[in-house]
């Protein structure tokens, strides 16, 4: 049952150490890179306007600071930073704007925050990214970014 070997010393082990060092170096680089990017996108700027996002089975409701509510669509202004306070009324959903890479879970009993700058005008998809039941696949809304 000998998968046991005569252990070779010296140069062959050094190659393994070099290899592991290279792997750790690559991972270290990836971690630092990720940390830097995350740090940059984490802090929500002062100038961001707050939009309340409420998810429920199976549609999205948005509320602007002036109290105006929108269901199934969201109108934002180009070049403006927006902060989203996201929650849910029933099960866990996930607020996702794929174009802007915005993703944050909508958890009942909790308010999660995320933000992005709506820098490109156009019509964009909003979708749910956490399985929430029968019509999860259809739980979409439209984002309109206007000048």
């Amino acid at each position, binding site marked *: 049952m000998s998968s046991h070997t005569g252990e070779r010393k010296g*140069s062959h082990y*050094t*190659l393994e150490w*070099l290899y592991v060092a*290279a792997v750790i170096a*690559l991972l270290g*680089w*990836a971690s*630092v*890179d*990720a940390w*830097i*990017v995350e*740090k*940059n*996108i984490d*802090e929500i*700027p*002062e*100038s961001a306007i707050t939009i309340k996002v409420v998810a429920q089975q199976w549609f999205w409701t948005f509320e602007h600071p002036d109290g105006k509510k929108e269901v199934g669509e969201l109108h934002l202004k180009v070049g403006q*930073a927006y902060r989203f306070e996201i929650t849910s009324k029933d099960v866990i959903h996930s607020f996702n704007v794929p*174009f*802007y*890479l*915005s993703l944050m879970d909508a958890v009942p009993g909790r308010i999660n925050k995320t*933000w*992005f*700058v709506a*820098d490109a005008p156009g019509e964009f998809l909003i979708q749910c990214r956490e399985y929430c039941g029968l019509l999860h696949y259809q739980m979409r809304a439209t984002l309109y970014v206007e000048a």
Partner: protein
Amino acid sequence: MIVINLSRIFKYCIKSPKSRSRLSFSIKLLSLVLGPLFIGSLIPILDSAFAQGAEDLVNRRIEIWDEFYRLMTVAMVVGVLVQGFIIYIVFKFREKTVKQKEVPSQQ
């Protein structure tokens, strides 16, 4: 000084010239690819020095996709090296090419 010692370590570690040249090729390739990527990853630090100011807001999707492309480039290069090496080994050391030794016991 550092360079001399590094090359000494290199020579000590890797006895066969073939593996030596192979590893040296890999190291050159990796540093050629990693160098610019490393510098590229530092750009967000420069960004953050100016970001959150009046005009310059961090563009989330550009930052994230940039990082994705950097990581994917490295992953692809390493992947080609590793997978290529596996295929190379399996091809080179397959049964047919190595001569049959007549003495059955080998150590």
